[in-house]
């Protein structure tokens, strides 16, 4: 009985300490949870995952391109040695180096096309039909290169490696496909900005009561001028999209990218500057 009485203060202190620590733990958990955004839609999740995939693929591409550069250097050395020595040993070395450089070339191209595909998939301003057409084309080329690489791995003799090199001819148009996709991507970026600027202008008009009869005449003029530049941007974008549907025109757009896209870029830049000025009327 006496012992129980002696332990009572200890028990009370322990209880107090434990309850306080528990409350701090609860507070900590609440704070950590509060840091997370309340709701994440599927679309945001999907976009985040896509961005992660793009970053990962970009890294893979850089590594594979670096590997290709190394293999190409070894191939050039082996090639020069065989040309000057013409021995069986130098030929054997050349066959090995040629196979290695060809494999790493396939891999670098596969990763590059994957990166293009993901960027095109993530782009928002491209017409769906055109987007699907190029996604399909890229997928087809990626699968072809994967198959080519797989077949080459099993080949060892000079004749077999040479036949594989001959098969690679069908992929020499990859640079053209890449140019077309890059032109599409450049166009889509500007289209997206226009698509977002249009509702923004409407929201600003609503916020400044531009539609009201009491609106300032200076504000009305500024709003009309902004509409005009946005409309010019739209016209220029439409012209570019029309042009892009013609055969081989995407390549020519890409080769003169600055010249072709500059009018739209200037229109959009001007529109955004006007929108900023419009907000000064608030």
């Amino acid at each position, binding site marked *: 009985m006496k012992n129980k009485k002696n332990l009572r*203060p200890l028990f009370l202190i322990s209880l107090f300490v434990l309850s306080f*620590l528990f409350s701090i733990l609860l507070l900590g958990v609440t704070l950590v949870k509060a840091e997370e955004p309340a709701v994440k839609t599927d679309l945001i999740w999907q976009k985040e995952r896509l961005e992660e995939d793009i970053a990962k693929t970009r890294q893979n591409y850089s590594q594979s391109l670096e590997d*290709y550069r190394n293999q*190409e250097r070894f191939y050039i050395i082996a090639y020069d040695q065989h040309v000057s020595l013409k021995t069986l040993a130098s030929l054997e070395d050349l066959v090995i180096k040629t196979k290695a450089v060809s494999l790493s070339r396939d891999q670098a191209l596969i990763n590059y096309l994957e990166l293009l595909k993901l960027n095109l998939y993530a782009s928002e301003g491209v017409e769906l039909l055109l987007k699907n057409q190029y996604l399909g084309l890229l997928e087809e080329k990626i699968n072809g290169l994967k198959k080519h690489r797989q077949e080459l791995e099993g080949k060892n003799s000079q004749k077999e490696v040479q036949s594989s090199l001959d098969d690679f001819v069908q992929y020499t148009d990859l640079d053209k496909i890449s140019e077309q996709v890059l032109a599409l991507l450049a166009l889509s970026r500007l289209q*997206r900005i226009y698509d977002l600027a249009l509702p923004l202008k409407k929201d600003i008009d609503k916020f400044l009561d531009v539609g009201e009869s009491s609106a300032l005449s200076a504000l009305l003029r500024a709003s009309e001028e902004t509409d005009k530049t946005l409309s010019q941007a739209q016209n220029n974008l439409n012209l570019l999209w029309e042009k892009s549907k013609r055969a081989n025109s995407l390549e020519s757009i890409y080769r003169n990218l600055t010249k*072709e896209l500059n009018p739209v870029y200037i229109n959009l830049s001007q529109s955004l500057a006007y929108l900023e000025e419009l907000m000064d009327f608030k």
Partner: protein
Amino acid sequence: MARKNLFDQDQTVFVDQAPLWQKASQDKIDLKSNLTRNKNLKPFYFLMAGIFLIFAFYIIIVFLPKREKRVVLVEPEVDEEILEAHPLEQRINFLKEDLKAADPTRQTLAFPNINFEISFP
């Protein structure tokens, strides 16, 4: 014995004061016996309170949301402006950033310089 008597010859302390002083100091230091006998628990409470405060402080530091390291900005005023800006102005600023990224003179995904003519001599 003679030596002890020699130390006891302190004439600044009165004989009847000495036991009282000894008793008080013993009471404060002897925690164990105090705890078991449930007499003077003040030192124990102070000790526990100290430990508890240190532990609570540690827990608070561990569980408080970590502040991100402040990056030295070239133009800190611009960020403050964006934070304080009206939502519509923020949308304009985001679009301006996007437009910068969409500059047609910038090209980061150009086709790699690859040798398409690898062959045997």
